[in-house]
């Protein structure tokens, strides 16, 4: 586990599985990267530019002012409304996901700032059952939207999800409706909603709040789409071209506003938050910032074998 993730102020629940080795193999270019070097580059491959997936906690640590995140609704955990059992019971899947990620559910929500500009933030955790949206994810996103409306603070959601969570059946489907009514109200309140599509954003999450942003950004090379690639190929009986359903594809088709490389994400969001009327703490000065991403990692040292 990386030490910078131990910073208590960023979602004490964040934890991530990574190989213990010093070298990491890039899944795209297969190049070997020194782990420190990868971390310093915000986990973007220095050779090919591949954006490695980030956990929800890493995402917030990357983008928010150091120490600014205050989680809310962290006490909401999934129930088992259908008593659903496939190869294993749903509660066991949840339990395993909770152990693996140290998160109670697939999204972290709270308040935070970027360069002093206030936001309500939500970051999804793909490592928790594929970032799938069940009742809790829907509830937390809806509550985040309600808080954003009440406090007149822009909402920023980082999506990373395969879609709705099958194990909660039609209740999962209805979370698309639940988040939509909350976001419609936010829109009517005249408060901005910035949606950042991370790898991957598909299915019921793409087809609800992720594509309801006033501004929709994406990380380079993210998988973004409605239906799964295999389903489409079976339906149309042909192979899909390379680059289908990527960030670049949806930008070219006019479906998103911009692709923002990870190194520029914090600055871009900071600028947008100010332009969208976020309350700004005038006392904020640069210094802590996302520099914490690297600085703390370097100073904290490493525990071998963890």
């Amino acid at each position: 586990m990386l030490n910078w993730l131990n910073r208590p102020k960023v979602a004490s629940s964040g934890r991530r599985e990574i190989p213990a080795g010093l070298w990491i193999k890039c899944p795209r270019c297969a190049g070997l990267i020194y782990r420190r070097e990868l971390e310093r580059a915000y986990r973007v491959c220095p050779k090919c530019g591949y954006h490695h997936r980030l956990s929800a906690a890493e995402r917030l640590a990357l983008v928010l002012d150091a120490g600014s995140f205050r989680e809310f609704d962290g006490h909401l955990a999934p129930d088992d409304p259908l008593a659903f059992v496939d190869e294993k019971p749903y509660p066991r899947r949840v339990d395993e996901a909770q152990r693996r990620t140290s998160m109670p559910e697939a999204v972290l929500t709270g308040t935070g700032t970027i360069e002093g500009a206030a936001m309500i933030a939500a970051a999804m955790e793909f490592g928790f059952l594929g970032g799938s949206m069940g009742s809790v994810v829907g509830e937390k996103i809806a509550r985040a939207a309600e808080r954003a409306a009440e406090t007149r603070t822009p909402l920023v959601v980082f999506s990373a999800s395969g879609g709705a969570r099958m194990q909660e059946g039609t209740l999962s489907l209805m979370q698309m409706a639940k988040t939509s009514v909350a976001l419609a109200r936010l829109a009517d309140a005249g408060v901005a909603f910035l949606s950042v599509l991370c790898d991957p954003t598909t299915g019921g999450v793409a087809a609800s709040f992720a594509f309801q942003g006033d501004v929709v950004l994406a990380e380079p090379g993210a998988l973004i789409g409605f239906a799964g690639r295999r389903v489409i190929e079976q339906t149309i009986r042909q192979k899909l071209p390379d680059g289908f359903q990527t960030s670049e594809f949806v930008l070219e088709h006019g479906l998103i506003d911009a692709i923002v490389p990870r190194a520029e994400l914090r600055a871009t969001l900071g600028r947008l938050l100010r332009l969208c009327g976020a309350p700004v703490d005038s006392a904020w000065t640069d210094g802590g910032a996302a520099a914490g991403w690297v600085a703390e990692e370097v100073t904290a040292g490493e525990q071998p074998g963890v």
Partner: protein
Amino acid sequence: MSSQASDAPLPGAPAPDGPPAAAASTSAGDALERTLTEVEREIRELRKITNEQRMDLNSQIAILEVRAQELREAIARDPSPWQTVQLARHPERPKIGDYIGALARDFVELHGDRMHRDDPAIVAGLGWIDMPAGGAGTAAALIGHAKGRDTRENIARNFAMPNPEGYRKAVRVMKLAEKLRCPVVTLIDTPGAYPGKEAEERGQSEAIARALLEMARLRTPIVAVITGEGGSGGALAIGIGDAVLMLEHAVYSVISPEGCAAILWRDGTRSREAAAALRITAPDLAGFGIIDEIIPEPAGGAHANRGAAVNAVAGAVRRHLGLLLDRPIEALLEARYEKFRRIGRVREMEVPEAPAGHTASPVAPGS
């Protein structure tokens, strides 16, 4: 704009083969289903003999047909979840045109999304709805998925699987209803939004997301009816309503049982189990607070008596419209918000320090 009406008269097509009964199973409903398949096979054989050998077996056929009908009604009285799926998908079930015909007069279909093309998988238009007992009638937008009456029409209508332009057309007509201060009625019957290459290029996700957002805030009453297959986001995209009604043997699901089985069991043939596990029948969904009312179907299912089925739907829609039209729009929007805001089931772990004690509770809005 074309004034072509899609509410053609009910077709008198010959009855197709009964619901498929493939995998062996042990439940009572499944046993009835196997018997029905057998009886139907015998009827076909006797008909063949009658035709080919000029023997008069009509009295025997009539007896078997009564038997088959009894079996169908027995299955439809208490279908298993998988049998409900078969009933919901039954090719002889009423179609969008039948419902519009029963509900409205002077229907004018409105085509196209004004951006790309007309999507025949969704029918939208304006019609006049007469209210019962001399109540004032109202113009209304009627929007729904269009399954075909036969293979040819199904191909033309893409088996009621909309592309983005279908949802954009639906939203366009909803906004028109809002402008005209008349209600919206949606009729849901789709396997799902079309998973195609062009659908992705034109933003299937965005189209559905936009439809959800617009329905959430549409300043006019909406009644949504799930009449057959409520296939995931492709169904929900026209499914946010002040009243959400569902025919007795319709289903409403986050994924098809086949798709669920393929993913979770890696075995698409375990659809029966998936259908049960997903809890997709009308009584299940009423229990979860997802639907407001179950509309009973005639004996044997909607396909067995289409006229009665469409009249039942029309009656229920009129009744709900009557209630909704009386309400001030702000109260209506508040109630719509609360209705969808509440759906879901979460556990609230005790905070700050309670290692064990969890309480299960329905979601409370706000925090």
